[in-house]
């Protein structure tokens, strides 16, 4: 039978398998929503219609853009500071002893506390919002990168030492390639964490962005709009993952294949 061959597990395209669980979730959701028929559980089709409405007639794109900028700024700051301090703490015993207790404290500082302190001390402005988000993410980046820096291959570092390779080249050619898996892991989990925290901070102290909008919809129990915004948001995450993170991963780790 011709069907049998294409149904072999090995021949199903990855994209189909990847989207199967999502499609199943949507299907179940639709069926349950139709069954209960309650405005507090809007169906996927109603959410899709609302998403379309907010996209064309509403301000979704504006708020999504504002939130994305905050995410990008916090992400870049958190990664740069986190990688630099992480490498330093991983390579220098002194730096590690100096900052380890501080790191444990920062790791366990609730996001809400960081946000409130930033808004009170810096003011209800953009800088405070971005710093508050970055402060939440930096400690986890440091912890990841420090592990990577501790696991650096001494034998390869010695090659750089014997041949007097300049420090900057050692960093670029010998150290960073060994840290890429740790950096990629931090970037992935970092993006997810930052998304979540940005919304809380927008809800708390900004008058635009997705978090602010969700707060407004919450006042009116407008669940359809809340889910429409969430869907827009999820779509962006998937695009970033597929167009940015996965190709980057392939490029950086190609030599392992």
């Amino acid at each position, binding site marked *: 039978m011709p069907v049998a061959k294409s149904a072999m597990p090995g021949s199903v395209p990855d994209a189909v398998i990847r989207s199967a669980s999502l499609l199943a979730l949507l299907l179940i959701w639709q069926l349950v929503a139709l069954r209960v028929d309650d405005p507090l559980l809007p169906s996927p089709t109603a959410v899709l219609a609302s998403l379309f409405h907010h996209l064309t007639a509403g301000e979704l794109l504006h708020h999504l853009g504002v939130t994305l900028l905050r995410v990008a700024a916090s992400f870049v700051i958190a990664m740069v500071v986190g990688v630099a301090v992480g490498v330093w703490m991983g390579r220098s015993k002194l730096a590690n002893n100096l900052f380890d207790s501080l790191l444990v404290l920062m790791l366990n500082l609730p996001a809400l506390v960081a946000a409130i302190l930033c808004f009170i001390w810096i003011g209800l402005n953009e800088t405070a919002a971005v710093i508050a988000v970055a402060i939440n993410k930096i400690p986890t980046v440091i912890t990841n990168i420090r592990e990577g820096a501790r696991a650096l291959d001494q034998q390869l570092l010695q*090659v750089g030492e014997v041949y007097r390779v300049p420090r900057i080249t050692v960093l670029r050619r010998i150290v960073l390639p060994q840290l890429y898996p740790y950096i990629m892991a931090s970037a992935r989990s970092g993006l997810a964490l930052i998304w979540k925290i940005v919304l809380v901070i927008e809800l708390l102290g900004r008058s635009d962005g997705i978090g602010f909008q969700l707060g407004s919809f919450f006042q009116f129990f407008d669940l359809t709009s809340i889910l429409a915004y969430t869907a827009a948001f999820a779509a962006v995450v998937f695009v970033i993952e597929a167009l940015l993170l996965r190709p980057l991963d392939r490029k950086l780790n190609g030599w392992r294949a």
Partner: protein
Amino acid sequence: MSRLDVAIRAKRHAGAAADTLGELQFSAESGDFLAIVGPSGAGKTTLLKIIAGLDPAFDGAVSAGRDTRVGFVFQEPRLLPWLNVADNLRLVQPDLPDALIDAGLAKVGLPGAAHQLPLRLSGGMQRRVALLRAFLIKPELLLLDEPFISLDAPTADSLYDVLAALRADVMPTTLLVTHDLREALALADRVLFVSKSPARVILDHRVALPKPRHRDDDAVSQAHHELMSRHPELLGGLAAACPKPEAV
């Protein structure tokens, strides 16, 4: 190009109970090929690190300074797996033109390998690249830390030839440490035997056999046999250490 004087009084690793190196003095004329033979764990690698300037914490003096161009070939090839062969070579010698890289690779028997990743090459091929890397900086001093260990005899022999061809151009003063007496006799002009740790020189033997030589040449076998029978008490530990190749 550069004479080598080594005068070590003692070397003890931080926290160790005993010295790794004892009183150790020798010199090598410019362009000499010197082999240091001793049992595994005699501190031979420690000695090379001191001479290379990687370990300043010792009592004594060596003539190679920070200005000496030192080529170092390790027990393992130590190529960066994420860089292709050409970029691995450019790590130690930036701005190296493609033509020179291709010529060098042809010389070590790897024509056209410039864009290969190291993991796609066999162990013997990776060692050829590592040898070439050491010679691209035009070393005044070449330090070889058992670079041919754990290779089968034909591969080792072919690498001896590669080493000889590369040395002919640059003629660095060369120091090979090994626990393999055959290898030392096949390659070096002079063999220094060191005791087990704390290492000190126990015999200085000049090798006056025609070159090129290989491991299983009759002359090498004969010299090996003579040395072993003339100095059984000095080289006893060595004989026991010889057959077992070190894990890489």
